[in-house]
């Protein structure tokens, strides 16, 4: 019957980025991965840099002088913002993935209200909190550099 050769139609990594669909929770999933990778990359370097404190005050001062350029200051602020988002979205994911705030099963009646709708207030609250964290970090940064 079927002698035809099948052709792969998997989206691969493009499927992570939406493949044409852009739900709000999908943006959060992509951003959670991107911020996680960003913080991880910084963290690996951070372990190396902060280990310099074991070599005494003069080595430490030289190391800190190397990371005082505006690009590093901005980079660290971006890491702070990334952490803020990742942490707050992480709290949201821990709650959802342990069954809290996804809603109980009920007989679906069209138009369907799914777990997506049920957790939307939590998602919005999480994003607002992430903005607050980013703003606090920004205020602190600006006050340090006055």
């Amino acid at each position, binding site marked *: 019957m079927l002698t035809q050769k099948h052709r792969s139609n998997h989206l691969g990594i493009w499927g992570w980025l939406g493949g044409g669909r852009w739900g709000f929770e999908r943006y959060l999933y992509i951003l959670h991965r991107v911020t996680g990778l960003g913080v991880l990359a910084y963290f690996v370097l951070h372990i190396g840099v902060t280990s310099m404190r074991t070599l005494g005050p003069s080595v430490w001062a030289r190391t800190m002088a190397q990371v005082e350029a505006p690009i590093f200051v901005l980079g660290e602020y971006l890491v702070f913002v990334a952490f803020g988002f990742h942490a707050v979205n992480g709290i949201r994911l821990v709650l959802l993935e342990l069954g809290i705030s996804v809603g109980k099963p009920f007989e679906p009646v069209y138009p*369907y209200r799914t777990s997506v709708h049920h957790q939307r207030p939590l998602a919005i609250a999480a994003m607002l909190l992430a903005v607050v964290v980013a703003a606090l970090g920004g205020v602190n940064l600006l006050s340090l550099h006055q």
Partner: protein
Amino acid sequence: MNNTADAEVVFRIRRFDSEKDPKPHYEDYRLKVLPGMTVLDGLWKIKETVSPSLSWRVSCRMGICGSCAMMINGLPRLACNTQIAELGTKVVTVAPLVNFDTIRDLVPDLSSMFETHVRLKPFLIRKDEHESEHPTAEYKQTSEEMENYLQFSYCIKCGCCMAACPTSASDRQYSGPMPLAQAHRYNVDTRDEGFDARRNELSGEAGPWRCHFGSECSRVCPKGVDPAKAIQWMKRSLVLDYLHLRKRPQAAGLAPVPKDAKRREGVPEAPKPTV
């Protein structure tokens, strides 16, 4: 979109015949659109008048069999359930479901999904196998207990959720929303005693661990099954089980027919079983 009798759309359909085409390509077909016309109606019109070789799966044409799932304007939908006017575009792009191999034109190879589905044991498992195979009575279940799984039992296995899932796009080991939601449907059915039988498979790579709540599956499901909800509840039950905190539910008991029950006057006997 213009809803008058002479409204036209272009169906941009992804065609592929492995015996003729080196790779898939898009072909355009102009169609006159009548009010109430679905994408499935459009495909039939094209097949009947322009391109008899156009292939897709279809059966009920009323959103219950799940055969006609395909990518319509970038989203996985049922062709019979999608009104052309509702799409609101002059060009309707139709392609086979993604995240499955394509057999031909709009026909996806769903065998991988069904093989995974079978591996997760989507059937009632009872310790008393004899009663299972040769039932003597009903299992007792309250309507509250039924509510725990009823939503997930509405699945028509169309594959839309699998096409929408970002993890299924790249990860061949991940079971995908449909098999996991159906495994959960049986795990929470009080008539089932198969949690232990499914645990081994679900604790590994085939389990729900690579779901990250992108929740596209629940957005696109045409029957409101909400597989994302099922998967999160499944994670909860598996983690509680790992921490030895899961309360083992009481399996549904039998509700035998009362011995002194009498048939009412005028109610005929059931026909003899033929199987």
